[in-house]
């Protein structure tokens, strides 16, 4: 009964579709029919792409010097020239092995000097998950000579381990036009 009422309510809210009378009446005087030609002119969808990401590998020798921070440029392309900025959701997992978390810091920053937008964080034992708006995108899909963003990652401090270890984490970047 509820389903029936739902269907009834749905049918009452549906718009009445315009339809041409495609076949005429059978008649001894005249028969009339028509067709409707509809042309939908639509804005193309805005497409976005992030590329240029690189895997990072920090090597640390026990008792050795601190592992230096690493950084690289990132390309973010938006297909629509009128949409210049994008939102970034950055999710970063803890860098951990079976026994130890290795805290690390990161900064994702806009390379455009006039747009000092960045998203920074420190990851210890929980996943970092934040969104920042206002980053500048490129209108060149290959970002030739003009990479719009830069990521820097560093271990927060030297690992205090006495034995060899191997840890890994994943960072995820989701970009969307705004």
């Amino acid at each position, binding site marked *: 009964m509820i389903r029936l009422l739902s269907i009834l309510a749905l049918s009452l809210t549906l718009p009445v579709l*315009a*339809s*041409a009378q*495609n*076949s*005429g*009446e*059978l*008649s*001894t*005087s*005249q*028969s*009339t*029919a*028509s*067709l*409707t*030609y*509809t*042309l*939908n*002119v*639509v*804005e*193309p969808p805005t497409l976005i792409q992030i590329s240029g990401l690189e895997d990072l590998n920090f090597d640390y020798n026990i008792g050795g010097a601190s592992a230096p921070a690493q950084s690289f440029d990132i390309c973010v392309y938006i297909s629509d020239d009128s949409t210049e900025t994008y939102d970034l959701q950055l999710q970063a997992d803890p860098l951990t092995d079976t026994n130890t978390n290795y805290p690390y810091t990161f900064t994702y920053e806009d390379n455009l000097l006039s747009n000092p937008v960045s998203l920074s964080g420190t990851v210890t034992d929980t996943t970092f998950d934040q969104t920042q708006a206002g980053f500048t995108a490129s209108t060149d899909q290959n970002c030739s000579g003009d990479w719009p963003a830069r990521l820097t990652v560093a271990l927060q401090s030297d690992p205090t381990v006495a034995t060899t270890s191997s840890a890994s984490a994943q960072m995820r970047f989701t970009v969307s036009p705004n």
Partner: protein
Amino acid sequence: MKHALTALALLATLPAPALAETNGTLGASSTGSLKFSLNVEEQKRIQISGLTDVEQTIETGRQLQDPANTDFENKLIWGTDGGLGYICVKMDEGGLYSLDWSVTPLSDGPNVESYDVTIYRPISSPSTLASRTFLNATVTTTPKSGSASNIEAQRFDRNCGRNSSYGRLAILLSHGSAARRFNTPGTYTATITFTVRPE
């Protein structure tokens, strides 16, 4: 049975026939006469069918010839092209009919986009009929209409198939140039209407 009813209905509406009456003479008996006639004609029924609505979508700034326009091509609304069906005019026992057509601008209200319309009677081979073009024009801001006559209809007991030239009408919709672009978003609609009458 249908013909019988038609004849009956016709009889009821017929005017009284002119009488060739003869009056009798005055006498012990008198005989007069009149002429009784019945004219039964069959009114031909006519029906047009098979028109198909057409809908296309294009992105602003993109040329028609852009390979991304997978659903965009000149539309022939007849035969099996694009699965659009065919337009068919049938009459009892065939015969000739007249056609009135009207075409409206392609508009979303405030804006108008021009388009090309061809309305014609295609032929198949072999055929004793000639192809005829009733309209071949660019429609801009003004509706277009016109009429034609002496067009051969198909019989009701036959189909307007590819192998028949009788009864078929075709519409070709196009946009002039493969490089044509549309820059103003909107839902543009136009209506093409046919009215057919027995001759």
